[in-house]
């Protein structure tokens, strides 16, 4: 024949098979297990990371919301303060205007009173001057007979009044 030793081949095949089975159980399966464990570990790490990332996003969203609420509150407080400031300014302006008007009114009244008093004083002075002038004129003009008649008229009038 060809010189092929079928027994040796068979032995080699058996050895190969045994080797194969041995390698399968001693090498392939542990390595496979190790790889699977590694894969699972890595996946767990990835999953944990994703979960943390989710949690972080949720916290960030929560803080953003809180910051937004604080910002709104701050703006509301500022707006309220601005409104109050304007109300106070308006009230002060109104009060100042009223006081100014009252002062003007008082000043007008005082000026009117002073003017009236000055007119009255002038009238009195004019009256006094007129009286003085009339007195001077009468002093020169009344005769003795006229003076006697004045006296008699007075005595008669006083008697009638009794």
């Amino acid at each position, binding site marked *: 024949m060809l010189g092929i030793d079928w027994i040796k081949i068979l032995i080699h095949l058996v050895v190969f098979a045994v080797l194969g089975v041995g390698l399968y159980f001693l090498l392939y399966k542990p390595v496979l297990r190790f790889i699977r464990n590694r894969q699972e570990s890595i996946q767990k790490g990835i999953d944990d990371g994703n979960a943390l990332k989710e949690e972080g996003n949720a916290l960030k969203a929560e803080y953003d919301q809180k910051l937004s609420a604080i910002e709104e509150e701050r703006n509301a407080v500022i707006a309220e303060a601005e409104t109050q400031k304007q109300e106070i300014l308006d009230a002060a302006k109104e009060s100042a205007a009223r006081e100014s008007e009252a002062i003007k009114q008082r000043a007008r009244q005082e000026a009117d009173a002073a003017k009236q008093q000055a007119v009255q004083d002038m009238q009195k002075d004019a009256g*006094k001057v007129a009286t003085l002038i009339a007195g001077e004129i009468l002093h020169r003009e009344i005769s003795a007979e006229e*003076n006697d008649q004045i*006296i008699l008229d007075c*005595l008669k009038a006083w008697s009638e009044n*009794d």
Partner: protein
Amino acid sequence: MTKIHVTTATALSPRMLDEVERWLNNRYGTVSVQYHVDDSLIGGIVIFDGETVFDGSVKGKLKGLNTL
């Protein structure tokens, strides 16, 4: 007896003295009269009986006009 002060601008003539004394006697009875001359009265007569002043002077009338 009532004391009367009579003031005139010029001294009274005897006729006027009688008239004044007659008026005073009618009003007060027996009186003691003091006569004064004050030319600032201008004319007329002022009689003061210790309580009341009877002002019939021209000066008094002018003052009355002044107070109107």
